């Protein structure tokens, strides 16, 4: 075991003997339910919680023959960009020691980067798969909303989040996607993938001849110079292989961060209302009036970032402010969708740096939450638009990994897998 604090719980769960993932090891983010193995969401609130059932994706992993090797560290309830909000301490970045692995699925990305697991599952509400993939120099894919079942995923922002794969190669990530994708009668938002080929893994051909790439200029504005340089090198590489690119404008994305945070916090304030310490979770054992008992249990069980988001979400939904914040955020979300639809009518994929900055140093950025939210500028628009996106390693700047993000049309995972595999 490494001392990078990658796992919250290390436990070996063997899957079936046969199957497409037989002999492969998988790390599972600790907000995905595993029967009989504690699932903490990186929170003191659920430090002792042991789910009585498996998430659908976990059942599918076991049926596919994978061996689960542990529950990966994460920002508390998925709320963070650095893995530093975990109640179990931060994870170190195996690719860039002394730096954050990104968040919120930081442990999952680090497990793959450190060779502690062949593959990993994370969840992505606003970039939580793509950010750590970029920061740790591995591949991470956020599927189209509705491709992968969320049954058994502890909810944070239901209208935004998807479970998705991490791996060292695009083809391996696609193989894991093949196992977890597809309809589940326990998640009514799932549907048939409607593949063009036989599998997602088959799409990793590296063939980009004739591929039309749109580059949204807004997602390069303000990005770190070294990151932008690495980005253009990757685009030049794709051009040499027969792709062509053109610049596009997505004016709506200027409002994506604030729209995302209003919607995600609002959903969080409702979803996290269930943690009252009665049916599960930390109760603190307080007596007296139930409102006070709940408030004290939640004060004790939740960390700062979770409290901030619950409070801001409660505020955004409260009488008199709902139209000002929540309704406007939904308008912005619809606008972002329209912009992406338009851009993708003249491009097969859109490309941007996954993160506008290289990985932060550990401890660098905890004090200013707003600055942290702004780091999500390139990933959150994709969740607002329900689209699929992949982050693939694209060189480095000053020795730190840089990720390239490729965004596809809804259920166009094969397209982004094909394009991303050309960069390996």
């Amino acid at each position: 075991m490494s001392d990078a604090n990658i796992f919250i719980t290390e436990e070996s769960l063997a899957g079936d003997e046969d199957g497409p993932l037989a002999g492969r090891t998988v790390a599972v983010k600790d907000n995905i339910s595993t029967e009989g193995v504690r699932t903490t969401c990186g929170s003191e609130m659920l430090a002792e919680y042991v789910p009585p059932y498996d998430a659908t994706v976990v059942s599918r992993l076991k049926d596919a023959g994978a061996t689960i090797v542990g529950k990966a560290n994460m920002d508390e309830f998925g709320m963070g960009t650095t893995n530093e909000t975990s109640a179990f301490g931060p994870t170190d970045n195996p690719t860039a020691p002394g730096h954050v692995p990104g968040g919120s699925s930081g442990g999952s990305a680090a497990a793959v980067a450190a060779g502690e697991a062949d593959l990993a599952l994370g969840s992505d509400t606003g970039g939580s798969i793509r950010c750590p993939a970029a920061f740790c120099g591995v591949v991470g894919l956020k599927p189209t909303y509705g491709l992968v079942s969320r049954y058994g995923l502890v909810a944070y922002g239901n209208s935004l989040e998807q479970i998705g794969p991490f791996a060292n190669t695009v083809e391996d990530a696609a193989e894991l996607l093949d196992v977890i994708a597809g309809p589940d009668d326990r998640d009514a938002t799932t549907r048939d993938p409607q593949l063009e080929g036989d599998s997602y893994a088959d799409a990793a051909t590296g063939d980009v001849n004739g591929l039309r790439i749109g580059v949204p200029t807004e997602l390069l504005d303000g990005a770190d110079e070294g990151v932008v340089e690495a980005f253009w090198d990757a685009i030049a590489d794709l051009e040499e292989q027969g792709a062509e690119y053109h610049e596009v404008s997505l004016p709506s994305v200027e409002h994506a961060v604030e729209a995302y945070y209003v919607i995600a916090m609002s959903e969080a304030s409702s979803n996290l209302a269930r943690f009252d310490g009665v049916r599960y979770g930390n109760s603190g054992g307080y007596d007296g009036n139930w409102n006070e008992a709940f408030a004290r249990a939640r004060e004790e069980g939740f960390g700062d970032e979770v409290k901030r988001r619950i409070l801001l979400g409660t505020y955004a939904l409260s009488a008199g402010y709902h139209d000002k914040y929540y309704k406007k955020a939904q308008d912005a979300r619809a606008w972002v969708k329209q912009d992406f639809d338009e851009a993708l009518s003249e491009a097969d994929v859109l490309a941007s740096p996954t993160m506008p900055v290289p990985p932060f140093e550990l401890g660098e950025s905890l004090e200013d939450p707003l600055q942290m939210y702004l780091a999500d500028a390139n990933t959150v628009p994709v969740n607002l638009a329900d689209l699929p996106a992949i982050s693939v390693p694209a060189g480095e700047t000053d020795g730190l990994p840089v990720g390239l993000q490729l965004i596809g049309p809804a259920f166009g995972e094969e397209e982004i897998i094909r394009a991303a595999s050309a960069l390996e």
Partner: protein
Amino acid sequence: MSDDAVNPEEVRHVAELARVGLADDEVDQFTRQFADILEYFETLDEVPEVDREADLVNVMRPDETRDSLDSEDALRNAPETEDGYFKGPNVS
């Protein structure tokens, strides 16, 4: 909170609505941070009204009985139980 600077009473009020206890120093910290964050959220005012042509259909299924979690499993994570029930604090 938004029209004027955020004040500590409002932070306490929202925390009460959300059933989250806050220490005094947390109230001060959140008051400062919320002022910045809400000021940033104000830029949503510039978003035009957008026609939301969501192409959504309801997903329905017939109601059919099937096995559910048995009560022993359901109660296993509860800090306190009594006679097969969850036990919570007093309803004021």
